[in-house]
């Protein structure tokens, strides 16, 4: 679905404004995609957010404790099946996970192939060789990272950000922090829209490519205006809260209820965790 944040393709001039617009639009599109997916009718979407959060944390611990790659691979496969059962696009899901893993983990895992002592699998030069232990270590690291990111992605894609925040209440995160994080997320959207409009407005009045100095000045000016706007906004929001009776500490209401399906899912997670720890020890 095309969204409101797509801007005209005619803005093809590369530069600070173009990059900023692309980044803002990417951020908004990703957020919209996650929100849309979280509202689909799928297996994970029907489960209680608290259960999903705790289940993910349990499986993250399991993935990082077990030593058998096959067990971790099985959990990764399970995450892909769960993504499919939750109507999450597998292409997007797998791409999102592996791009992250390759950027942040593959580079770290690569040296392990060569520097870990052990049985030589491939002698590249007289002093550089790929070892079996090194290969296993790198594979284990990649599997752990990809499975962990997959589990986290499943939670984010099947649960709205606001529900994830509320679910954090079970981890005894204070209400005031949950409220503050929720409001931050809500207003990041507003400020992203404002930033988008500011850059578009500037883009529409620029007739030639900007020099580096001009770009820096533009960024500094935009940052200053945004800071000023956000300070004014925060002051007005506090007044709006005060107007409706807010004093010192927020009172909130929890409407989440566990159903039989949540308890069944909890049992499955526990059984899976125990079996994985036993088999993969």
């Amino acid at each position, binding site marked *: 679905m095309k969204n409101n944040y797509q801007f005209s393709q005619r803005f093809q001039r590369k530069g600070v404004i173009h990059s900023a617009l692309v980044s803002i639009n990417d951020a908004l599109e990703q957020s919209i995609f996650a929100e849309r997916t979280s509202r689909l009718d799928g297996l994970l979407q029907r489960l209680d957010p608290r259960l999903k959060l705790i289940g993910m944390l349990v499986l993250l611990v399991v993935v990082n404790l077990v030593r058998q790659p096959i067990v971790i691979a099985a959990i990764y496969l399970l995450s892909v099946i769960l993504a499919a059962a939750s109507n999450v696009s597998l292409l997007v899901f797998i791409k999102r996970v592996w791009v992250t893993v390759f950027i942040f983990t593959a580079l770290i895992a690569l040296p392990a192939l060569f520097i870990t002592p052990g049985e030589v699998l491939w002698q590249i030069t007289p002093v550089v060789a790929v070892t079996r232990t090194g290969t296993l270590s790198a594979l284990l690291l990649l599997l752990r990272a990809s499975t962990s990111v997959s589990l986290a992605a499943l939670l984010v894609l099947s649960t709205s950000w*606001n529900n994830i925040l509320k679910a954090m209440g079970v981890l005894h995160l204070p209400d005031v922090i949950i409220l503050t994080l929720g409001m931050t997320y*809500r207003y990041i959207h*507003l400020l992203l829209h404002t930033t988008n409009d500011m850059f578009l407005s500037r883009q529409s009045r620029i007739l030639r490519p900007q020099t580096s100095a001009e770009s820096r000045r533009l960024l500094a000016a935009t940052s200053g205006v945004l800071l000023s706007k956000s300070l004014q*906004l925060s002051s*007005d929001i506090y007044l*709006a809260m*005060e107007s409706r*009776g807010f004093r010192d500490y*927020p009172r909130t*209401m929890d409407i989440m209820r566990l159903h039989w399906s949540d308890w069944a899912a909890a049992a499955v997670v526990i059984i899976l965790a125990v079996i994985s720890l036993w088999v993969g020890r």
Partner: protein
Amino acid sequence: MNTNTETEKIFELKDVHYAYQDKIPALSGVSMYVDQGEILAVLGSNGSGKSSLLKILDGLYFPISGSVKAFGEDLTETALRDWAFNFAFRSKVGLVFQDSDVQLFMPTVWEEITFGPLQLGLDNAEVTRRLESALQALHIDHLRDRAPHQLSGGEKKKVALASILSIAPQVWLLDEPTAGLDPRTTAWLIEFLKAQSLAGSTVVIATHDLRLIETLAHRVYILSEEHQITVSGSPSQILSNRDLLEKNNLC
């Protein structure tokens, strides 16, 4: 706080002065009153001080000099620090901000609507009852789990109204309520405010929308560009005086 409303004055302002950062004048010697049950419009051009006036009536800003009485008692910063006074005042007065994005600070619509009743200490059963009632009254049940950034301008305004309706205030303060609304939503809003008035609520509207005055107001004040109340009268008296409207940058 005096709960015996005895008809008469909900608000009474005498020679109120207010300035931003104690320098930029927003109100210069404003004296006015608001009767119980009336729909009062404060008409003024941009920058005349309408929003500041509403925030003073809502106990969010406090005058540099002059006095403000609400329900027969002094409305001061000190008075609002008292829990009982604050509770009574906030339960009775609701302010709808001009910019809905300021007012809709909670992550979802249902949390926005329950915020006020929860802060006022109502129990969960009563809060839930008010939530459902407000959602039904504003016909926004389908929006209950939406985030504010997923709403249109008209929907945001309805949620902002629902967030005040759930407090069940005796007094509605509305800052430029029709700003940015399409004609259909504007017509709906006028009917909504009429219904609130018929139910006994007092309504104070700050606006420069003359159509709103014509269709809704019982009485009108004009706030000049010098930040002073220059005229008060009935909508017909005010709207028929073209020189007056032109002088105050209203037509």
